[in-house]
C-alpha cells in the first residue's frame, strides 16, 4: 500500500515508505526490542508486552512509516517523526533498520525520502536527530546530511554497564530546500 498523490513521494530507487498496518506489528516489535539494533532508547530500555507496545506505538509520534526494500518488498526498518511542535516548526526524526539493511544505502535513502515527505507536508524549520553514544555507528551515514551538533548531554543515558552522552543534531532545512 503506497500513496503518491498530490506530488508527495514516498518511494525512492531502493525503498518504499509504507504506512503501518497491523501486519507490521510483529516486525516492529522485534525491531524495537532487538539489543543489536539498539532502537530501545525509544522504550528507555524496557521490553514491554506486545499489547502495550502496540498501544503506545503512536505516542508522541507525528508520522511514521515502515521502510520496504524494493528488492524483496520486505520490511527493512522504520522511520518516524516524534516530539513535533508544529507551532514552532520543529520535530525530531528517528529510525532503525535491521542488520542486513545497514550499510546498504537503504537507511540513508529511507531518511532522505522521509525528510522530503516531512518538509512537503508540514511547515518545519528544524529537524532534530537525537541518539545515545552507543548508537553512533548506526548514525554515521547521517554525516552525509547537512547536520550541526547543537547539544551533547554528558552521561545522560545508561546502557551496558556505563553512562553515555546523548547528542542532538539539527538538520539545516534551508540547505535541503535550496538544494531542491
Amino acid at each position: 500500500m503506497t500513496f503518491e498523490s498530490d506530488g508527495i513521494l514516498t518511494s525512492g530507487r531502493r525503498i518504499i515508505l509504507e504506512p503501518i498496518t497491523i501486519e507490521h506489528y510483529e516486525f516492529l516489535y522485534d525491531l524495537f526490542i532487538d539489543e543489536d539494533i539498539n532502537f530501545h532508547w525509544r522504550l528507555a530500555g524496557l521490553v514491554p508486552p506486545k499489547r502495550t507496545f502496540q498501544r503506545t506505538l503512536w505516542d508522541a509520534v507525528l508520522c511514521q512509516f515502515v521502510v520496504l526494500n524494493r528488492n524483496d518488498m520486505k520490511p527493512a526498518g522504520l522511520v518516524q517523526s516524534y516530539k513535533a511542535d508544529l507551532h514552532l516548526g520543529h520535530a525530531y526524526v528517528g529510525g532503525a533498520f535491521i542488520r542486513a539493511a545497514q550499510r546498504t544505502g537503504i537507511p540513508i535513502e529511507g531518511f532522505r525520502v522521509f525528510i522530503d515527505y516531512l518538509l512537503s507536508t508540514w511547515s518545519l524549520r528544524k529537524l532534530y536527530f537525537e541518539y545515545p553514544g552507543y548508537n553512533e555507528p548506526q548514525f554515521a551515514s547521517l554525516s552525509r546530511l547537512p547536520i550541526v551538533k547543537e547539544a551533547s548531554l554528558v552521561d545522560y543515558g545508561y546502557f551496558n554497564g556505563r553512562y553515555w552522552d546523548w547528542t542532538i543534531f539539527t538538520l539545516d532545512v534551508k540547505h535541503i530546500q535550496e538544494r531542491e
Partner: protein
Amino acid sequence: MTHLDADHSLVSPSRSGRWVKLAPVDDHYMKFLYGLVVKQPHDFHWLFSSTVPNWEIFVSVLLERLSLPFVILAQTDSRPIGFVSLYNLRLDSGVSHFGICIEGSLQGSGIGTEALWLHLKYCAAKWNIRKFYGEIPEWSVQNIRSHLNKEFVEEGRLRDHFYRDGRYWDCIIAAYTPAQRSL
C-alpha cells in the same frame, strides 16, 4: 540532602524556605495553575509548548505526566505564586528535566531561585537523580545568568527553538549535578 539526625532517625529535606514553601498539587489550586498557564503561556513552554490547552487536557497532563509537582506558596500568607515540577524523569539513568513558573510580578526577585533549589534538593533526596536539566529560553537567561555560570553547565543550545515577541530565541539546555555542589 536527607540525613540521620543525632538519634539516627531519618530526616527528610524541608519543602519550606525563607520566602516560599512547596505544597502538593491539590484540587483547590487547579484554577490558580490554569490561570497561570493562560497568563504566562511562554513560561510553560516545557509543558504545553507555549500554548493554552483546554481544561481537561491541562488537568490530565498535570496529574498524569509529571513527577513530584508542587505549587509554590508565599511563606507569608500561603498564597499560591507559582509551580515547579520534574518531567522526562528517567530513573534508569538518573536524569530528569525540571520546569518552573513564577508569577510575572515576582520574576527576578530571587523567589523563583529559592523555590527551585528547595525542589531540586527535595527531589535529589527522594530519588537517585544524578543530573537535572533545564530547557531555558534565551529570554529568561538574564534572570538566572549568575546561576548559569556557577551551578549550571550549558550542555546544548538549540538555535531559534522558541518564538516570542516577533522573533526566534535559542533554547539553552543547562545541567545541574547535585554531587558537584552540596545542596
